[in-house]
């Protein structure tokens, strides 16, 4: 499929950036998400204890976000967890999505990236306490909490495939405490 060729090339860009810890490309289903999480779990011992929990948390949020919110029609996704140089851990995940979700997410990430730590904390507590659940059981907290726990702004990359189809790639960064 032509779409997957484009995505394959993007995947190759990401896996060539650094030292790969866990990489995956495949269909978005429970079995594959489980597999990737187990792989990540098995590699956490490579990192300082202080950062292991953050890594796992981010990976869970990214993978579960894909599981719940990615396109159900185009199910190919990728996940790349690598180390750039000695000190930067990069976690990236890419999935297909439609135009309206893409615009919502893009806007959300852009707004989050403008907040300082205290503003982020205030937003997190407000959303936590707002008694609202999304239809997938989440509550709008995922990106806010990922942003709060990571060290640089969330990077949003994308490929516009047609008028209504995008491939979105999120990346976050953590400082590897050696």
């Amino acid at each position: 499929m032509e779409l997957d060729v484009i995505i394959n090339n993007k995947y190759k860009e990401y896996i060539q950036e650094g030292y790969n810890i866990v990489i995956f490309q495949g269909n978005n289903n429970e079995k594959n998400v489980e597999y990737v999480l187990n792989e990540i779990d098995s590699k956490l011992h490579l990192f300082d204890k202080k950062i292991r929990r953050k890594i796992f948390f981010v990976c869970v949020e990214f993978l579960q976000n894909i599981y719940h919110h990615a396109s159900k029609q185009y199910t190919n996704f990728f996940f790349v967890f690598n180390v750039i140089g000695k000190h930067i851990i990069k976690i990236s995940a890419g999935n297909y999505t439609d135009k309206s979700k893409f615009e919502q997410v893009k806007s959300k990430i852009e707004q989050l990236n403008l907040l300082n730590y205290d503003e982020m904390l205030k937003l997190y507590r407000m959303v936590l306490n707002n008694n609202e659940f999304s239809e997938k059981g989440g509550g709008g907290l995922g990106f806010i909490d990922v942003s709060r726990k990571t060290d640089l702004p969330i990077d949003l990359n994308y490929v516009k495939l047609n008028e209504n189809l995008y491939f979105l790639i999120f990346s976050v960064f953590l400082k590897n405490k050696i």
Partner: protein
Amino acid sequence: MNKLEIKGTPKTPSIVLDPTTGKLEIKGRSIPENAIDFFKTIVDWLDEYSQENVEHTEANIQLEYFNTSSSKCILDIFKKLESINKQEGKSVVINWYYEQDDEDMLEAGEDYQSILKIPFKMIEIE
């Protein structure tokens, strides 16, 4: 009223809710894809428990990780406990355990502490 015990799994915490002693325990990892389904059992149990005449309730929460899907469900449970604490002749305390150097779990406890009006103790463990 019956004790509720749910064994932990790689994605869900162990739960022990004892109406005789008033001790409630949630321990382990909480990363289910849909936390509402998992935590509903606990919420329903607490609704029934709130009608019992148990003077003092102690909730011990010791989580290794929890996803954001769990965050709101956990707050729901705490709000049930808050309502019980407001009942005449009853008291509730929540003990939030976090490992030494686990800043994220400490912060998560502070998030809940900032929202709730109930005794909420942060307990560091090694």
